[in-house]
């Protein structure tokens, strides 16, 4: 159940902090590249 203690669990010392922005950029960039590639496929094989 929801606990009364709402503190975030501290990451263990061996675990590096999550590089959020790099991942977000990678996901969005991949989508962008895929859409361009698909657009090329659509035109090229038409």
């Amino acid at each position, binding site marked *: *159940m*929801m*606990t009364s203690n*709402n*503190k*975030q*669990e501290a*990451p263990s010392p061996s*675990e590096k*902090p*999550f590089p*959020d922005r790099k*991942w*977000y950029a*990678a*996901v*969005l960039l*991949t*989508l962008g590249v*895929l*859409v361009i590639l*698909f*657009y090329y*496929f*659509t035109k*090229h*094989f*038409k």
Partner: protein
Amino acid sequence: MNFSGIDWIVLLGTLTIIIVYGIYKSRTSRNLEGYFLSDRQMPWWLVLLSIMGTQASAVTFLTAPGQAYSDGMRFVQYYFGLPLAMVVLCITLVPIFHRLKVFTAYEYLEQRFDLKTRSLTSFLFLLSRGLSTGISVIAPSIVLHSMLGWDFFLTNIAMGGLLIIYTTTGGAKAVAYTQQIQFVIIYAAMFIAGWYAINGLPEGVGITEALHIGGKAGKMNVITTGMTEDGFNWKDRYNIWSGVIGGFFLALSYFGTDQSQVGRYLTAKNEKQSKLGLLTNGLVKVPLQFVILGIGLFIFVFYQFYTPPAYFNLSEEKGILESKYAAAYKEQKLHFDSLQSAKKSAAIQLAAAVKDNEASVVDPLRDQIQANELQSKKIRDSIRSIARQYNPSGQGNDTNYIFLRFVGDVLPAGLVGLIIAIIFLAAWGSIAAALNSLASCTMIDFHKKFSTTQMSPEKEYRWSKMYTILWGVFCVVIAQFAYNFGNSLIEAVNILGSWFYGTILGIFLTAFYLKRVKGSAVFYAALIAEAIVIGIYFLDIVSFLWLNVVGAAAVLLFSPLLQLFMEKKKP
């Protein structure tokens, strides 16, 4: 469709491995955290496979190649909003869920708003997910009944019953571990089927030539804009705009507010592992779906060289041939078969022209291939209308049968059994997660919340198992009763989901972005939004993907207005 002894061995062997492995891996703490969240110990890659296994049902693997065969590759656009949604979720809801250490997504709503908003949202989830899970059971049974002549009710019971055993025994952990093997088997089998389609092409026709043949026939329509001469077509289901915008809201709602998904990434060791699972899903989902659709494209090209069935639903075709519609069907089939030599000749010439880079020959061949395809489509439409007259509930829609018919006609013994096994596995992957989430919401959001007696962790664990069994039985019963409705019911329940998803998402977005809005305002705004969504659906103004946007927007619009009104009313 021939199902040999080797196929039976492969099918039963695969299913046994999954069940035994599920039970073997199912040891968890005998409490709610162990049963519903695998003690929050899962690594990101298991979370990823679990998320993907939950999303992809049996229908996904049956329909996608058929969809590409008949409508082209544009269905992939449906997934364009998903990566965007993964990013937004990782920024917004995932950190909150982890910080609050919730079991269900709806617990957060009680903390942010009030109990009635939490209960309403959880109830909407149970209603839509409970019904749609029943349909997840029925869909593969209908197909197997039709293609292999298996008894529909027994298939349902086998499909649901075996699954209930390991889902109940092992809870979320068994769900995740079995989804891991299911994923490997499913994708391996799909790739093998794709390889057979490519390998069956005549000499001189490779992948590039096949893509050109499919492309000239209009099947490489990967990106479409939905624009017509009269402007944007709001009823067009799959184009880049409905995919990016409608698909974004759908994915945001599904992954952020549907407990069958939230329950998967809450099993992660920590917030980082949840995010890694979700973001990797955002990276791989679109290309994987493209490949699965590509199998349908290659099957289409394969059938340019070999005569395809005029109607892919085997048992319905047999039924038509024994009915008063037999003469009409045979006449149309004769027309259809007579097109084959023209199709083959055009495809061979095009492949040679592409290979020799003869651009001047390509244009007339494109016209010819398109004319053949148009003619073929017209005849198939006539055949479908005959099928509709023969069996009105089937709607003459044979898209779900295209892939399986290809498998039965082309793949050797043993592999047919493997493909039938993946139908079971894909169904189990999504149904198991759904049962686990239905049980968790019933236990956490209702039983534990409203029960006046204090329960020991052991007793809570036993109740949770009981709810898993009850929901499993409910889904099998729904499936048994729903048979008479046929394919129309499957579509109806997909639409039913989009009635609720937008509203549920709107409640969560309000919770996150509109800090001033309180419980009562969002509760009544959700009821108004629901009425608007259902009203718009019945007025048939937009395609169902847009209902997700409408529902969310209506809650976001009405909740602050109601809040203002309520504040003014107060003395």
